[in-house]
């Protein structure tokens, strides 16, 4: 027990988790937006947009996140001089959000598309029959129902996203959980169990409410047919 006290006194564990939560929040927001756009492309009647959406999903869903993250920080920043902020820390934070977004948008896209599959074809036909074009039909009729059918799979993506924020260490985000854990192990190798439990339990505490909330919401918001 005194092991935990020593660790918590020495290191800002809560602060480290706070960085991951912020990473997760921004990446979830942007990848949800990008994923929605991609899903619209994939269900659109325009072949070139369908092709782009499919290509994007297949490329980024099948590339390891670590590689995207390393590319985001090392290649984009140090080789191609892409800078998202003049502040050093903020820049790496944003590059990490960018990498997380690019990767998880592919998964959000597929989760939303699975939601689109819960909407009967007749809904789209009825929308077209009263004179709605593709975008208005998608916005007013298809997507509101698709999102409600996609809550559970989107919850899964969100849970994976939260845990994947630990990969941000490879993008140079220094104070987040996995880099804090590494530092702890370096200086307190004798407290290995406590260190492990600290972070494992920390993530479980963050992630369990997401699962409970999305399960509850997917039942509560299900479209009655």
């Amino acid at each position, binding site marked *: 027990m005194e092991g935990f006290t020593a660790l918590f006194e020495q290191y800002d564990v809560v602060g480290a988790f706070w960085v991951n939560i912020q990473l997760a929040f921004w990446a979830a927001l942007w990848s949800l937006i990008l994923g929605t756009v991609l899903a619209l492309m994939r269900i659109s009647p325009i072949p070139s947009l369908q092709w782009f959406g499919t290509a994007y999903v297949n490329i980024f869903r099948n590339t390891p996140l670590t590689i995207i993250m390393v590319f985001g920080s090392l290649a984009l920043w140090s080789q191609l001089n892409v800078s998202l902020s003049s502040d050093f820390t903020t820049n790496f934070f944003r590059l990490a959000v960018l990498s997380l977004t690019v990767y998880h948008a592919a998964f959000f896209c597929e989760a939303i598309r699975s939601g689109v599959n819960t909407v009967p074809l007749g*809904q789209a036909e009825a*929308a*077209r029959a009263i004179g709605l074009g593709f975008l208005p039909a998608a916005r007013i009729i298809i997507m509101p129902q698709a999102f409600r059918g996609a809550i559970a799979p989107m919850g899964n993506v969100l849970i994976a996203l939260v845990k994947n924020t630990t990969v941000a260490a490879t993008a140079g985000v220094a104070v987040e959980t996995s880099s804090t854990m590494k530092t702890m192990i370096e200086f307190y190798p004798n407290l290995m169990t406590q260190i492990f439990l600290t972070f494992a339990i920390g993530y479980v505490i963050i992630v369990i409410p997401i699962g409970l909330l999305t399960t509850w919401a997917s039942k509560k918001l299900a*479209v009655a047919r």
Partner: protein
Amino acid sequence: MPESAAPLVSLKNVNKHFGDLHVLQNINLDIARGEVVVVIGPSGSGKSTLCRAINRLETIDDGEITVDGAVLPAEGKALAKLRADVGMVFQSFNLFAHKSIVDNVALGPVKVRRSKPAEAKKLAMELLERVGVANQANKLPAQLSGGQQQRVAIARALAMKPKVMLFDEPTSALDPEMINEVLDTMVGLAKEGMTMVVVTHEMGFARKAADRVIFMADGQIIEEATPEEFFTHPKSDRAKDFLGKILSH
């Protein structure tokens, strides 16, 4: 049947294939303004496809379909505009499941016709009153019976003030005791002079409301006649056979 004016809906040499199946074979059909045409025939005869082709929910391989003088546009805004003028009632109702009954009806006028929401809602309530489900206006579609849902679907189509209404087997998914409430609504529409194309198995409706009966089999129009003539003196063997099977009970 009024014959003087140009036809409101016209199909010329229309063909369609589903793979090897030739579902519409050289269909020629003119529908006059105010005419009620009932399309009957055995399942798989292409009657639903014919109905859906008129607002291009089914594309056609060749031939020409015109509505009120304009050739059906292939896609885009022009097609959406045409569809707004052609009301469609489906077998499975297809009410927007996440919208209330009144919103289902008001949605088209607001989003397509750009009516003011208050006006659209007023119109929606009038139409719901007319089809007899105004007291259900704030419920969701799943809370209504099939017959009520189908009457709402008719109101939704009427809200667009369509030039012609297409009915694709509107009573086939209904419990028997709910069929009449829907048919009564349709008979009322026919009496008011709405141009209607009705794919149905309801021979009673055909007798009561149709100006003309089209009998289809194997993707072709085999016979067309007034209901009286068709039901009492069918000419073709296919029609005699079909009527023999359905009227013998």
